[in-house]
């Protein structure tokens, strides 16, 4: 799967797509692959504050429960309610319909800390090399 070039990425394998100071956040294809079959997603409610680098929810797969970390700080404006009933969407469409939350950014400058698609692809290919070494 390709990593959308307009998105920004974290080392914990989240992506963010920012439009008009609202960022849509999800987990990457690499992350869903590592997790395996997702069975449950726990997300914050609209109005909750998230902080860059801090956990805001978790994804439970048949293997483990993993924290999801916010790429940026801000206030949650929407959580993807569809994932409650169909968490498996995270495995099939992680970069689009299986977004997790939408956040009103507190500080646009935080985006500069994140990787672009090219840097992220390099980062995970390094990870894959480590894993196969």
């Amino acid at each position, binding site marked *: 799967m390709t990593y959308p070039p307009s998105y920004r990425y974290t080392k914990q394998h989240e992506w963010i797509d920012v439009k008009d100071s609202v960022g849509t956040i999800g987990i990457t294809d690499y992350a869903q692959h590592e997790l395996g079959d997702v069975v*449950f997603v*726990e997300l914050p*409610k609209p109005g909750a504050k998230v902080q860059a680098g801090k956990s805001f929810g*978790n994804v*439970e797969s048949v293997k*483990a*429960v993993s924290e999801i970390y916010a790429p940026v700080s801000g206030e949650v404006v929407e959580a993807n309610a569809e994932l409650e009933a169909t968490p498996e969407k995270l495995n099939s469409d992680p970069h689009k319909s299986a977004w997790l939350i939408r956040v009103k950014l507190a500080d646009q400058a935080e985006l500069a800390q994140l990787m672009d698609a090219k840097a992220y692809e390099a980062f995970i290919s390094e990870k894959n090399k480590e894993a196969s070494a």
Partner: protein
Amino acid sequence: MRYLPKSPAERKQMLAVVGGKTIDELFSSVPEQYRLKKALNLPGPLSEAEIIQYFKARAAENSLGYTSFLGAGVYNHLRSVITDTIIQRGEFLTSYTPYQAEITQGTLQSIFEFQTLMCQLTGQDVANASMYDGSTAATEAVLMAERLTSRRRVLVARSVHPEYRTVLKTYAKNSGLVVEEVGISADGTVDTIALQSSLKEDVAAILVQSPNFLGVIEPIADLANIAHKVGALLVATVTEAVSLGLVRPPAEADIVAMEGQSFGLAPSYGGPYVGVIASREKFVRQMPGRLVGQTTDSNGRRGFVLTLATREQHIRREKATSNICTNQALCALAATVHLCLLGKEGLREMAHQNLSKARFALAELEKIPGVRRAFDAPFFNEFTIVLPRSAKLVNAQLLREKIIGPFVLGTAYPELTKHALVCVTETVTRVEIEKFASALRSALEQPV
């Protein structure tokens, strides 16, 4: 596993391995002032014969030949020797937590059956593998509602067991949870007018008990509607589990917290008892405690495993739903065996006998001048009476007749000065009820 202390030779051997000369040297990192310098104040060792003698003497102190009309959260019910025989089997008695599904199918299946029985009785979708007792289950249920609603206020009916309320307040004291009490109406149920005036959209849960501490059955369905109007959850607690053989289960409640002592566990010095939490399936990830699930193995055969363990603190400490990391497996097994022996008809019959005998007892007591029923709402096997004088003094007189009198409600409710909570289970005979009534009559006839 042996429970024998180490021999001097073994101690010496172990010290040699770690490179110490004496036991004291091992503790040298503990600052001098914190080290115990004198022997513990304990009696010396006893021989086997002396120990048997000691326990025979203690057993002789037991009060034999008494009839009890005391309930108030702990109930005397018939128990079969089969229950004790089964739970004393080594496979159950000494087994550890069934983490390894491949070698613990028996234990896991018995827990799964316990959960199934609890769901059937409470009208809920999922039940956990048990909690310490009813009081901690009720508190954990409230904390669960707090997590589910993200609200910090809870309304508790004063008709909930006073000790359950104390346990809840202990948990809440330093956690930021605000606990407010709601009074009792004239018929003995929770005061719904007061309840509705305290109920705002910041309330996580309403906690009620049914049958409540005064013996009265609460209108669970109505209370659930009241709670749901503001997005609060209804937590229903049950202290007398046998009532579920006859009384409509609290199916409309969002969480049920129950004491299972009535199912095969004898009343004893505070336990061990067995708590239960049952709830709706959609709330399962916020449930505290252990859960056993049914699955299929690689050959497609039915099997059982511990499931959703990521809620538990041994997996994710700071994100756990509770700091409970155990369950009352043996007590839960006793309850399971007891219920299987009784069966559906047997439990209903037992519940019927409780109700019939309690009604008979009330009728007998009401014939005594000055004695009247305190609350009009329906009851199960406990009811409150008002006496013409102090219930405490009356009880002292009853005790001389080898009758353990009713619970003196004034100890927990200062406003109920002459009120007593009478409990009548299937263990009490008609003759004993008549004897109690006549003993109460003569106690009240005596000059003060």
